[in-house]
């Protein structure tokens, strides 16, 4: 029962989770469109090195509701493969997929 309880517990969304999801989405869509794991992982590393996360408190709804922040990674995951190929390593172009992206990350 203890194991069941522990593994059944929902957990909180951390302030930088939204930003990390952007990087995961870039890597995930790269993997789906190219089938190249190394390219996908390298693209995430580039993202992590070139951009700074903006933290968000999920309870703060003054600017935007937290659930709407996922519009950025969702838009990236829906990019047509032709655009993924065209954008290549130009991450600024990737981040124009949704206006929400500007709320989550900024260039270092």
């Amino acid at each position, binding site marked *: 029962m*203890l*194991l*069941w309880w*522990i*593994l*059944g*517990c*929902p*957990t*909180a*969304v*951390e302030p930088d*989770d939204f930003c*990390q*999801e952007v*990087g*995961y*989405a870039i*890597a*995930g869509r*790269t*993997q*789906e*469109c190219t*089938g190249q*794991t*190394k390219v*996908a*992982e390298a693209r*995430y*590393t580039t993202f992590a090195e070139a951009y700074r996360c903006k933290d968000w408190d*999920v*309870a703060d709804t003054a600017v935007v509701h*937290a*659930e709407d922040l*996922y*519009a*950025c*990674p*969702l*838009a990236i*995951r*829906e990019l*047509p*493969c032709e655009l993924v190929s065209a954008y290549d390593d130009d991450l600024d172009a990737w981040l124009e997929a949704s206006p929400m992206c500007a709320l989550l990350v900024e260039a270092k």
Partner: protein
Amino acid sequence: MIALLVGLAGAQELVDPCEFNYPIAGSAGFANGQTGRRTNRNTYSAANFAERSLVDDAPEFQWALEWNATFNAAQVPTLCGDADLAGSTTKQRVYNEPLDLYASNLAISFETHSFGAFYSASVTQSVMGQRYFVVPTMIIQLYPLVSSPFVGIWQTGDGVSSYSLDWIGGAHVDTRWFGARIGYTGIGGAYASVDERTVGLFGTLAIPLDGTDPFAGKTPWSFLKAGLDRFDPARFGLADAAKKVGLTSVFLRDLPFGEAILDVAGGVAASAKDGEGDLASQAADLAEGRLRTLHLQQDNIMQWVDVDIAVAVSPEVNLYDSMVAVHTPGYVRGRLVDKSARARRKGEEGFLAKVGVVTLPAQYSLGVEGGTYFSARAEYRSKVGVYVILLFNDPEQLALYPFAVNALSARVSLSLGPE
């Protein structure tokens, strides 16, 4: 292990569960959940279960029932929609909800004079939360498992939640030298399995029959498993050596990774429903994902110890594991036994404990940071055919669900037959 899990739980801020939860698309957890539900359907498909549960050289009648659950396979960002009636306000908030994967399987076979028939069915589910309600209802899945050929195939899902029902039926032949099975799958495909009974070579194949050319660029099979299963030197007069070195297995397994088994047409349709865009663009975007793993196993060394190594060879090497197990003598059984040996080993109780480490590289496309994780497996087999397995970070789990770090799987099997 409990202390470890308590520690893991302590590392995350726990929040209250939510009755009405809505998964949010766009996150790695959501994408993993969609992959997980399809992989769950493939792994515990009716064809796969028949191959695994119906033993060779079948007795006159055998059956097997099995329930599998993987808790916390993925953490999915979720919007809680519960209403706080007392305050007339909503409790809307975003949090991570664990996604659980369930499978219920049934297989039956009977035989007279080396010829017989078999039937196998599966129900797979992926559910967010509601664990206290879902687990007890797995017993109710017996009804669709039995009635599947009459009610048809079900594959439905929304977001990361799904329910799938499929079945296969066929005929088999068993001789002293070889065994063979051939069957039709309710989902639209053919299934064949052959094993020879001198050395232990075997091969199992499932081919989708959807009207497309199976050799038109794609892998023609939806499931393949072939190699050498539990080679026993004792069968060649080397009984002493067999007690020391044990049983040797070498085999390759090829599964769809993420995409549906045996349903090239149906799978594309299901994927189109999952996501967005028209069917053609969805189909064009579906890269053929295959999970090919090479397994080397030396079991029953000195009758007590197993050493298992598995490497994922496709799409890229992304999982290494090395495990050492200790078990009661006779727990691991040879594949090829005569009827007297089978009669002797019936009713034997035993257990197995396995610990090790599993190393996952960072896989940011899945939202996995990577690292080396503690891995454990415990098995118990009763005298009356009840079989219980607990898996934590087991390579068997992580090969299928590489994002399911720190997930716990449980399996309960009931069988009547030689096992």
